[in-house]
């Protein structure tokens, strides 16, 4: 096809007009070309007027850092399980921030990097689940999910006429091809759901998926505060009482879409996921890479773990308040969401050493004394000296102490 340059057209008496705002060229008032592409290096900084770069354009959350509302979306951090396989009880956490629900016990196992397959390019970890059953029931729930703190979704304006769309993106690999599902749900009331589907085209192959979800303009949403605001769910086979029509908000509690694949319905079936990102807007951007220390700190707002790595992992200093009681304050490295629960691997997990006499713990107690530090009372046998400074450390390499303020 012969081409004519703008100069040639002008020499022929044609009026050539270029409109860069619409990327069009008109000749004598007639549209001649659209979607003009500028060649590389053709626009210098000086040719961009200051007034064309506005704060409004720069503030688009899709072009800024911390756009991913999911924490540990690349499944790197596994403080609780350290990569070991678990058959989770309902509500038990897996890799950090992701928890499992199975209303009937032992229908699936979960493990960071289960099956040891190669993760998608750019990722080192994934959350794997493996079916242990051929279970099917209308009234049961099977899924993995993450709850997002209300104060981290306020700008989405869900529950108002200004509700923003969100883009959910992730990598998935399943032994079951077909239509899988998940949902967004308002938390903690759980009475607004958006079931969505995604298709696994080929079994046992990593595939990248994007789901665009319109903001919910109805319902009651928590958009501030330290409670839960939104739950992102990946369904593993919830029954018909807990699934709904895909692609629309409804007033029920749905963990997936009607007619989708059930992972727990096929014994040995696998469902692996990583690179989970939820962001404002109608376009999924590349997965946001955050430094490990930053991601760990984000996780530690909800869960912190001590011990399990050395024989004597120091927890804190304190003082004996009796011959069998130690009181200490544990300074937490990250401010937690609320006063944390203290968990222990065994009542005997701790040793109290008052620089002469030592006692093994028989009871461990905490209290609501703030979010930046934690109160710790350790009961031992009557082996201590009253009113002595003392140190508290984990008792053996398998002993662990945890602080939890999950949503």
């Amino acid at each position: 096809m012969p081409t004519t340059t703008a100069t040639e057209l002008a020499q022929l008496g044609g009026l050539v007009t270029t409109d860069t705002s619409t990327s069009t060229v008109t000749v004598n008032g007639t549209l001649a070309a659209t979607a003009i592409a500028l060649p590389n290096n053709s626009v210098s900084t000086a040719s961009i007027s200051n007034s064309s770069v506005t704060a409004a354009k720069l503030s688009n959350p899709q072009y800024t850092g911390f756009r991913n509302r999911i924490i540990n979306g690349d499944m790197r951090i596994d403080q609780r399980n350290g990569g070991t396989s678990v058959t989770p009880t309902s509500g038990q956490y897996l890799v950090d921030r992701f928890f499992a629900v199975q209303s009937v016990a032992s229908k699936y196992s979960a493990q960071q990097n289960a099956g040891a397959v190669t993760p998608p390019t750019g990722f080192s970890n994934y959350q794997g689940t493996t079916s242990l059953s051929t279970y099917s029931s209308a009234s049961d729930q099977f899924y993995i999910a993450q709850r997002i703190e209300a104060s981290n979704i306020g700008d989405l304006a869900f529950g108002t006429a200004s509700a923003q769309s969100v883009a959910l993106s992730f990598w998935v690999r399943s032994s079951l091809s077909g239509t899988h599902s998940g949902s967004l749900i308002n938390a903690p009331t759980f009475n607004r759901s958006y079931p969505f589907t995604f298709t696994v085209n080929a079994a046992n192959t990593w595939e990248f998926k994007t789901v665009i979800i319109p903001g919910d303009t109805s319902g009651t949403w928590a958009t501030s505060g330290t409670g839960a605001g939104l739950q992102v769910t990946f369904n593993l086979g919830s029954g018909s009482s807990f699934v709904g029509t895909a692609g629309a908000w409804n007033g029920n509690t749905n963990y997936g879409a009607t007619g989708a694949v059930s992972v727990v319905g096929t014994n040995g079936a696998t469902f692996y996921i990583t690179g989970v990102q939820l962001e404002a807007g109608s376009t999924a951007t590349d997965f946001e890479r955050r430094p490990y220390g930053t991601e760990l700190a984000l996780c530690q707002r909800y869960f912190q773990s001590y011990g399990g790595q050395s024989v004597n992992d120091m927890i804190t200093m304190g003082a004996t308040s009796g011959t069998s009681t130690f009181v200490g304050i544990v300074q937490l490295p990250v401010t937690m969401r609320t006063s944390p629960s203290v968990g222990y691997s065994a009542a005997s997990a701790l040793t109290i050493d008052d620089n002469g006499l030592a006692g093994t713990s028989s009871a461990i107690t905490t209290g609501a004394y703030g979010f930046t530090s934690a109160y710790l009372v350790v009961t031992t046998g009557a082996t201590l000296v009253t009113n002595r400074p003392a140190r508290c450390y984990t008792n053996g390499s398998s002993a662990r102490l945890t602080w939890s303020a999950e949503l």
Partner: protein
Amino acid sequence: MYKLQNDHRGNPCAVGLLNPDGSGMSIPIDPANTDYQAYLKWLADGNTPLPADELAE
């Protein structure tokens, strides 16, 4: 089974939960703590926790 817990002065401060495998948890009395919320639901279902231990000294 939940068990009430006192601080070193004998004042109520937490609720203990002991698991069958010997692990356990101490839950602060804080309405924003989801473990405490689960305890309140357990109470609302008509259950009663074990009493706290007496102060040793």
